């Protein structure tokens, strides 16, 4: 294996890991507020199809991204109303969101299958891109990947160093105590859910505008679910999400790498690898029950009804 191939593999791992990173960054904020949104796959597909249609009709990929983020937020708003206002079960509502999004995206996208758009082109960053190896791996991407480099730092800063982060943590760890000191628990959770939806919409548009770039039914192939596993893998820590996203990205392209190396295994068996890798990672990470209990937001998945306080 020569250096060029390794550079190519790492470049592709970052590209493949980017949508996972975007979703996981949104979902981690959502989970920190105590809400588990399993609708990622559906929101991502809706983001992908709406982003594609918007970019296809206007010829502007920027509009596509914006439309996808709005769509993601709108989808998550449905989830938020059901879960926060009507006290619906978070698991069931998230599943409903995925089933709905999968069906609706296939429905509205059926006329657009087979078209392609002019997505975002790679931009080589002056000077940095000329660094041997590193430049080829990190600094010849498109604008959404650069954005995804900056986001974890911003989000980690907000979550760990600011008052907003503290409020978020209070709501996720103990909503009753947070409510007692005057924090509007439901408002915080609404915002966290909407943020998660926008990020997942963005990830969807990355799939249909940059990664492929086209629309196909069910094109996300379980990435929304893998991103949910990524949040558990990262133990709800933003820094580790970034590392994990690229590891998962690498696992997703491993079958291409092996084929490239001439390993003689059926491509259908190799296509299982991202999912098998996810299961293995889940097992290794969660085996320590005590650690997981310590790190997971304590009110995760539990409903909060302000009327209980009255």
């Amino acid at each position, binding site marked *: 294996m020569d250096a060029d191939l390794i550079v190519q593999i790492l470049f592709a791992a970052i590209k493949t890991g980017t949508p996972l990173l975007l979703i996981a960054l949104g979902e981690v904020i959502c989970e920190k507020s105590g809400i588990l949104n*399993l609708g990622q796959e*559906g929101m991502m597909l809706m983001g992908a199809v709406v982003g594609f249609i918007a970019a296809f009709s206007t010829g502007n990929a920027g509009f596509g991204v914006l439309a996808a983020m709005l769509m993601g937020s709108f989808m998550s708003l*449905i989830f938020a109303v*059901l879960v926060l206002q*009507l*006290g*619906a*079960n978070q*698991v*069931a*509502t998230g*599943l*409903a*969101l*995925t*089933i*709905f*999004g*999968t*069906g*609706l995206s*296939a*429905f509205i996208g*059926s006329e657009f299958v087979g078209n392609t758009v002019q997505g975002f082109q790679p931009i080589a960053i002056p000077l940095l891109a000329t660094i041997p190896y590193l430049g080829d791996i990190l600094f010849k991407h498109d604008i959404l990947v650069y954005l995804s480099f900056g986001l974890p730092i911003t989000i980690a800063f907000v979550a760990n160093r600011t008052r907003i982060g503290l409020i978020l943590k209070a709501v996720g760890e103990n909503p009753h105590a947070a409510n007692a000191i005057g924090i509007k628990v439901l408002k915080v959770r609404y915002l966290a859910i909407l943020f998660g939806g926008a990020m997942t919409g963005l990830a969807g548009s990355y799939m249909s505008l940059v990664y492929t770039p086209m629309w196909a*039914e069910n094109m996300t*192939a*379980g990435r929304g*679910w893998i991103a*949910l*596993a990524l949040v*558990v893998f990262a133990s709800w820590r933003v820094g580790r999400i970034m590392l994990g996203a690229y590891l998962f990205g690498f696992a997703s392209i491993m079958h291409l790498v092996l084929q490239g190396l001439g390993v003689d295994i*059926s491509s*259908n*068996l190799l*296509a*299982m690898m991202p*999912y*098998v890798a*996810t*299961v293995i990672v*889940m*097992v290794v990470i*969660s*085996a*320590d*029950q005590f650690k*997981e209990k310590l790190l997971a937001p304590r009110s995760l998945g539990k409903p909060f009804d302000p*009327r209980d306080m009255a």
Partner: protein
Amino acid sequence: MIRIQARTEPSSLMKLASPLIAILCTLIFGCILFSALDKNPFQALHVLLIAPLSDIYNVGEMLVKMGPLLLCAVGLSLCYRANMWNIGAEGQLLAGALGGSVVALTFIDSESVLVLPCTLVAGIVSGMLWSAVPTYLKLRFNSNLILTTIMFNYIGLYLLIWAVNGPLRDPDGYGFPESALFSDATILPTLVEGSRIHLGILLAIIAAFIGWFILAKTHLGFQIRVFGADEPAAKYAGFNSKKLSWFVMLFSGALAGLAGVSEVTGPIGQLVPNISPGYGYSAIIVAYLGRLHPLGAIVAAVFLAVLYMGGDLAQIEMGIPIAVVGMFQGVLLFFLLACDFFIRNRLIFNKPITH
């Protein structure tokens, strides 16, 4: 003025009315959607919901779709009651189809009456195996059941695709990704002459009654119900949560596996890549719509089977994409979850108290 007030006791009337209201809301939503698409909404609803029941052939086809939905949903009802979030019915169904096909194709030249039972058992065991692994990983390594069962759906799908493209492909099939046609000895008998109503559908209904019996009449079922209603209480009472988890997961895997093997030995008659149009996922909605009650699942499965059937007809007759079925299923579950709010709450219409 209208106020929302928490009920002191959950309303059992609303519990039954909620699915009906949700279906009504979904139909209204459908009318609005079809009008927006310049399709006659009443014609569309007629094709979606009435036409599938219009003649005996269509009813038969509807029942063919009901069978796998019901089998998966009965198992899921028990799982969800015991707080085991098994999303893996789809993968368990595919595993059942694959495992059954291996046996059916191995004994393709045999005419023994034992071949069919062996095939069915192989399917059931494969389904159980496919749910046993995530269950073991959850109970032993504390891994998230929702995510592992989902991953096993994808793994099962690729395993199936690999098998029909590789070891199980028909050598005389001109390279198509299909197995050979099963022999007559491994085909489920049809129950009604001239239709595709097969033995698997009867087994599904029997399974629903078995599920109901376990849940309502046995000590095991009692434990499952207590566990779902109040987990700390169940643990305090000394119920063995591991044993319960194993039971519901294996039961659910067995039924989903039976659903899969009934598809390949029933209406399809060979192993193909697209056995299921998402039955395992739709069964989640069937389970909820049936109120996590195995007998309720029968009614709910009929409704969703009609919708599936109607989706096929709507595509042929009105050019409406088949994906509309998936969307309606999602909307239905949304409305159902929203209506369930009124099981625990009620609206009060009154004047503010003045004195």
